[in-house]
């Protein structure tokens, strides 16, 4: 199979000679497989490149996520918008080379390990710059607006992104065999407190610590684009800042890695104007409900017997953490409102 991939990549990139000298399965993908390929390339536009990553589907898929062909287009859109992403190099959409579609991208340096990124004191002098950089990356992404023919598979942009999200989440809860009144309560609050709609932009929708690479204190690549879609830009901010994605470093409110004010400042610097930051707590509640519902869906993949996995089983049991968090977040927002 390595020979077939090497020959395909050689033809794609116009190389005179391209050999794959090693392949290693990278960790951290339940839904996708990421292979690091060691290359020996002469000629063509990858001349001298030593490593790339090949991304393809794992044995199991999640219905709600995009396939590799769509993900390649999203990654390309981010790259063309000037974001720091692993440069997409070539797409094999037909499945004729290895039996399933895949694409090849440059390898981003560093680590995405959230426990390291939120706790390593070596990063402390870089945290201000890192949070600002992430803000700038998000602002670049959010410059992509519909219509966008290359991204037509995303469907129509919602006129009211929050309403669209709430309706999807009700659908998630209705697909589960048990009732989850705390998540339902959170959704009802989200529905009653829906902000006025703002125009939808391209959102990553899984932009959080663990899904971007960092090397020497700087972001080197935004990864995992399979949930991207048209939404309110604050959805990305809320997802990034929600407490459930701070990995225990709660005091660093931007993803456990930096301060909220630095994230916002970076965003404003790139976008030229702020978003309505007063609405971020709303989108953090939505993020927490969403992660709670997704955790239950993952648990259900195990419980139903569709895919036995200790990770999926434990993820389902995590939902109670999000439930209590939602109850506390909303009570806090309501208390603040009552005191104003």
């Amino acid at each position, binding site marked *: 199979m390595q020979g077939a991939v090497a020959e395909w990549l050689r033809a794609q990139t116009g190389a005179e000679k391209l050999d794959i000298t090693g392949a290693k399965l990278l*960790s*951290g993908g*339940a839904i996708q497989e990421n292979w690091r390929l060691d290359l020996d390339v002469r000629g063509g536009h990858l001349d001298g490149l030593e490593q790339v990553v090949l991304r393809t589907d794992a044995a199991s898929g999640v219905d709600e996520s995009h396939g590799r062909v769509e993900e390649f287009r999203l990654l390309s859109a981010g790259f063309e918008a000037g974001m720091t992403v692993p440069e997409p190099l070539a797409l094999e959409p037909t499945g004729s080379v290895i039996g399933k579609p895949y694409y090849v991208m440059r390898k981003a340096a560093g680590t*995405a*390990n*959230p*426990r390291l990124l939120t706790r390593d004191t070596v990063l402390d002098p870089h945290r201000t710059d890192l949070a600002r950089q992430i803000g700038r990356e998000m602002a670049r992404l959010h410059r992509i607006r519909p219509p966008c023919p290359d991204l037509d598979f995303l469907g129509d942009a919602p006129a009211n992104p929050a309403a669209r999200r709430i309706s999807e989440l*009700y659908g998630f809860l209705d697909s589960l065999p*048990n*009732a*989850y*009144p*705390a998540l*339902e*309560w959170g959704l*009802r*609050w989200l529905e*009653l407190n829906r902000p006025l709609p703002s125009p939808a932009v391209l959102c990553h929708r899984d932009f959080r610590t*663990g899904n971007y690479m960092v090397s020497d204190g700087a972001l080197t690549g935004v990864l995992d684009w399979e949930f991207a879609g048209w939404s309110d830009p604050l959805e990305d901010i809320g997802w990034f800042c929600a*407490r*459930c994605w*701070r*990995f*225990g470093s*709660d005091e660093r409110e931007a993803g456990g890695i930096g301060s909220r004010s630095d994230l916002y400042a970076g965003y404003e610097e790139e976008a030229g104007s702020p978003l309505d930051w007063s609405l971020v707590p709303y989108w953090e509640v939505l993020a927490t409900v969403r992660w709670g519902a997704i955790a239950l869906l993952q648990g259900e993949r195990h419980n139903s017997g569709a895919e036995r996995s*200790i*990770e999926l*089983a*434990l*993820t389902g*049991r*995590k939902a*109670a*953490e999000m*439930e*209590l*968090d939602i*109850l*506390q977040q*909303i*009570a806090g927002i*309501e208390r603040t409102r009552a005191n104003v």
Partner: protein
Amino acid sequence: MFEAPGRKALVETALAAFQEDILPALDGDRKYLGLMIASALSTAVRELEADADRDGIQRVLDGFAGLYGEDNVERAGHDAEAKLDILSRDLTRELREGLYDNSLTGPVHTLLTVLAEEKLKLSNPKFLAAREYSQPTPN
């Protein structure tokens, strides 16, 4: 069932041996898997304790009685788990219908907090003590 050690003691013993003799020798992906195994077994031990001591589910049913009245909780069935399931479905439907729209942070919030706390006593007691999200979390 017939012999000692019983199920809880067996799981506890297996967990202790795993944590002392195997987990320290693991690294990388296997360490991550090892931590998940320890977490699953710890939850199982707490579940076995809760099966013996019904305080948790009773506290939740008392919470429902505070919202619906003692009689309505009684009528929901004989088995505590089945009762909890029926009452949770009723509450979910009522929330969606808007019955609590004017009092979301009132008694229904108190009840849902009890329910979430009782779940967490089993799955992750640290979250109650320090609002600490469980580790490992997926990458």
